């Protein structure tokens, strides 16, 4: 197991704070800043606590960091950021970015992101990442200086490659299908879960009305009064209990969301492969056609129809000198092309190898994490059932005393 940053350094996103400032267009804006605290992990150092370093970052800086990582390590499944805007909300949660619950869950999500990167064998060694954690001023300039934006593949180029690539590695094609379906199924799950939460909330809250009416009824009863009154209290407890239950369930939803966004990161790696493969195929195709041209010029035969051939036939042949010159240029180009093709081939194979290694690592991580998430979900459900049994048992006892 490589020695990743996470083992040497404690990283937390400990606080969130509302700030106001001026944006690029000199307009006033409100945003949230997050406090990143880091501390070197001292192994076996009694009593000696290393100092805590801290700096503030806002969400857009996290985004910048991630974009940098995406471009710089296209063969890595880069951990996703928590959602920019609240999505899959059920009625109680607001979709407002300034809402304290949303900010709190985002804080946890950002911390999770940093820990994921810090425990990745490749990503944790990145200098920009390290500076993100430790260097307050000038970090943005540093990132931009890497010129990573220029290296980014255009969306259009990538889309084009996806459609036109002829021979991608089958595993990547399958993986792409898998990530599409994973995205689809998790978003469906999250949407319906939000509706389920909404309905469950309704069921619990209506029971609160029993509390009031039992109390009112108990006022006109002699012997039944006490039992009714105390049972009503338990109904109030029952109605109130749903708030905590659903709050806990949001953590489960967040765990699912992380993997929803991870699916996008998987797709990005597949897209990169397709792009490289397409590039390779185009280069090979170009080389083949140049070789063909060269051959035609050398032998004087025209194997395939070409406009040039036709025009030269119609308007007269070239001089031998002209032909020689052309052949020379082509031969140079062919040589260049062959070298390029060789290196592209190598690049492609390296990419496939390292990407697939990271994908295997990711698969294991995903299986482990999702299993844990399902277990904690089941535990939540068990806890909810036990609370329900408790409340109704208490109510039953009160009724028995009527």
């Amino acid at each position, binding site marked *: 197991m490589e020695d990743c940053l996470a083992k040497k350094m404690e990283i937390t996103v400990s606080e969130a704070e509302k700030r106001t400032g001026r944006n690029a267009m000199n307009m006033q804006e409100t945003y949230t800043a997050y406090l990143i605290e880091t501390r070197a992990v001292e192994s076996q150092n009694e009593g000696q606590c290393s100092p805590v370093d801290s700096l503030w970052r806002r969400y857009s800086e996290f985004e910048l960091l991630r974009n940098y990582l995406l471009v710089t390590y296209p063969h890595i499944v880069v951990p996703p950021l928590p959602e920019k805007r609240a999505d899959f909300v059920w009625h109680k949660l607001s979709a407002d970015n300034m809402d304290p619950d949303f900010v709190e869950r985002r804080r946890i999500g950002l911390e999770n992101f940093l820990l994921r990167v810090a425990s990745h064998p490749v990503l944790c060694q990145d200098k920009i990442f390290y500076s993100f954690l430790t260097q307050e001023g000038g970090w943005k300039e540093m990132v931009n200086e890497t010129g990573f934006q220029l290296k980014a593949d255009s969306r259009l180029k990538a889309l084009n490659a996806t459609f036109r690539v002829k021979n991608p590695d089958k595993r990547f094609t399958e993986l792409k299908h*898998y990530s599409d*379906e*994973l995205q689809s*199924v*998790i978003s*469906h*799950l999250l949407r*319906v*879960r939000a*509706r*389920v939460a*909404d*309905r*469950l909330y*309704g*069921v619990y809250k*209506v*029971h609160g*009305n*029993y509390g009031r*009416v039992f109390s*009112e*009824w108990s006022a*006109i009863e002699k*012997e*039944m009064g006490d*039992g009714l009154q105390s*049972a009503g209290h338990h109904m109030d407890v029952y109605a109130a209990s749903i708030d905590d239950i659903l709050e806990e369930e949001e953590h489960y939803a967040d765990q699912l969301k992380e993997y929803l966004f991870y699916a996008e990161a998987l797709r990005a790696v597949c897209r990169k492969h397709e792009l490289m493969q397409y590039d390779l195929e185009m280069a090979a195709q170009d080389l083949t056609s140049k070789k063909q041209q060269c051959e035609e010029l050398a032998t004087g035969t025209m194997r395939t129809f070409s406009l040039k051939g036709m025009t030269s036939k119609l308007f007269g042949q070239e001089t031998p000198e002209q032909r020689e010159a052309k052949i020379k240029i082509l031969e140079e180009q062919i040589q260049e092309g062959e070298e390029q093709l060789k290196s592209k081939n190598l690049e492609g194979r390296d990419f496939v190898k390292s990407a697939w290694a990271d994908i295997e690592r990711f698969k294991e991580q995903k*299986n482990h994490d*999702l*299993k844990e998430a*399902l*277990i904690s*979900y*089941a*535990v939540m*459900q*068990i806890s909810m*059932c*036990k609370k*329900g*049994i408790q409340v*109704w*048992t208490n*109510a*039953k006892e009160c*009724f*028995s005393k*009527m």
Partner: protein
Amino acid sequence: AVGTPKPLPSSGPKSLREMPHPLATSSSEEMGPALTPSPELLLPRSIADKDLSLPNGTPVDTSSPASSSSLLNRLQLDDDLDGETRDLFVTVDDPKKHVCTMETYITYRVTTKTTRAEFDLPEYSVRRRYQDFDWLRNKLEESQPTHLIPPLPEKFVVKGVVDRFSEEFVETRRKALDKFLKRITDHPVLSFNEHFNVFLTAKDLNAYKKQGMALLSKMGESVKYVTGGYKLRSRPLEFAAIGEYLDTFSLKLGTIDRIAQRIIKEQLEYLVELREYGPIYSTWGGLEVELSEPLEGVSACVGNCCTALEELSEDMTEDFLPVLREYILYSESMKNVLKKRDQVQAEYEAKLEAVALKKEDRPKVPTDVEKCQDRVECFNADLKADMERWQNNKRQDFRQLLMGMADKNIQYYEKCLTAWESIIPLLQDKPETK
């Protein structure tokens, strides 16, 4: 063992001297030979014996029913019924569908087991339909107007919305009809009613129904013809209190009914979402390899919770709501009895005042005013006794009802708990093949 004849303090049948023979007045054209009932089956034995006494053997008593001795007897009556010396058991079961050319309807078997002298046989088994129960209730209201008659389940059901022949509807109705008869059985006065006896025993109830002259009680006859229009001076405190209590009580029950309905509605909407939710885990499981079993497990678990929830909602609809509604109906009919009582008292007060205004020197109060006073006192006594009984039964009924509601919810959560606990080992399982 035949019990000692118990006195009917207030509302026994009229003096048999005053009553014409039932069969004499009914026109023979109406009843064909096949329908001519034999006296033994239709009429209490005492009439056939030309005995001038009440069906249970006691001589007709025209003195004030509220006399202390009869009150004492009534109290003894209650003790006996509460103890182990029950001598009348009635059950409603075995619903059957009858398809005829004109209509389709359901009959229920009414089984009676008794040691009472008023019954010729120790056991009876007859079939009755809802309209027979309805007839019985009307007859009881007519003949025992000073008493609280238990309610019947609702008569009319909106066709198309509720299936009158569905198992659930029929079972709910059967339970309510059973409760209705049991409440009458437990009542020290109503259980001795003529019509009740016939209802339980007659092979052909329709023939009996056709008899024009019903056996009206003295009270029934008199109260029936009490006209309204008399204004009540002052309602005795206890009856005012009962009236106020019933008003608030039925209001609160109405609220509880609405809440319960709302909960069922929300639960069913929750169920709809859960039904979509569970299968998504299964779909996901189809995409995965290592996670396939855990996801399938979660899907199945959610499915089990759906089943449990469905059962809970059904139980609440079938067992909880109907009983609430019965009690609301009960309160309504009780308020009507209270109104009648007011009228009887008002009439007495008016007549008394009229006499006082005449200022004639009379040695005693005229008999019709005396009769009014009797009626008032009788009514008050009956009503008071019935209210006490009703309060007690109400407490037991609601105790049972609400404990039942709590129980059903506990069972629901226990089923869900079992489902979720059982998949924890499945989720934690580490695959052997790696």
